């Protein structure tokens, strides 16, 4: 398995590499709860004083006082539950109120166009927030061919994330019983807002 720094191409540096890091980071934590080792590594991450750095620092502080059992419990409460979790992190659900709706069909069409296929070990519908973050990371890094033009990234983001991800992360922020994932919600919402604004600036 890759460490993230191994997954970033040498020519991809600075902010673009940072975007890929953040998408990958969110994808990992929204697909499964972190292990004890990941939680410990996160607890050691410093606050660099930037807008996102402060949020990462806040997440690090929460990680330092959260056990792996607690974070697994949070994840289960939010995304699994006895019959269903508190949140349904799917584009279809957030946009139509139902799973497996038109947004998933539209995503599958674009995935085919962009040569993105579901991995054999993936059991979720592709419009899961973690899968979408992973796809954005892959487009930036060039995992599905050459690194995608910013226009391609912007179109993918606009079509499949912008309509609903801010509401999802806002809902995650409101999960009072889940302090670790609440902070993921804060970080995710801030990053999505930055991405949206940055795409606008690119023209």
């Amino acid at each position, binding site marked *: 398995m*890759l460490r*993230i720094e191994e*997954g970033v191409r040498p020519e991809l540096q*600075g902010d673009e590499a940072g975007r890929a890091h953040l998408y990958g980071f969110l994808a990992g934590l929204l*697909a499964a709860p972190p292990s004890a080792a990941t939680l410990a590594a996160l607890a050691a991450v410093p606050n*660099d004083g930037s807008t996102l750095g402060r949020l990462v620092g806040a997440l690090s502080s929460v990680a330092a006082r959260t056990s792996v059992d607690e974070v697994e419990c949070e994840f289960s409460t939010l995304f699994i539950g006895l019959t269903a979790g508190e949140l349904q992190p799917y584009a279809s659900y957030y946009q139509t109120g139902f799973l*497996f709706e038109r947004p998933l069909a539209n995503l599958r069409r674009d995935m085919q166009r962009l040569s993105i296929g579901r991995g054999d070990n993936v059991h979720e519908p592709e419009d899961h927030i973690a899968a979408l973050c992973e796809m954005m990371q892959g487009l930036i890094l060039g995992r599905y061919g*050459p690194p995608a033009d910013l226009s391609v990234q912007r179109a993918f983001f606009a079509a499949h994330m912008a309509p609903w991800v801010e509401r999802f992360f806002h809902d995650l922020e409101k999960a009072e019983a889940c302090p670790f994932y609440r902070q993921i919600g804060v970080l995710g919402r801030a990053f999505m807002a930055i991405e949206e604004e*940055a795409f606008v600036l690119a023209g």
Partner: protein
Amino acid sequence: MRCVDEERGKRGSGEHPGDVSRRRFLRHAGVGAGAVTLAAVGSAEALAASDAGRPDRTVAGYHETAHVRRVYQLSHF
């Protein structure tokens, strides 16, 4: 997710002039610096690898079955 077409055609990496202001904005927001600190934590793959020894689990207990695939077909997804 994986690439399903290794021979996929060119997807250029040309830069739009507006990228200058975009990059300035991203830098000011700390996307580069903030994210580099997260590199020590790991990517989706690394995080998934850290779960390698655990029982198989999915995010919401969803499994694609023959029945689900049939629904996809009938729904023209």
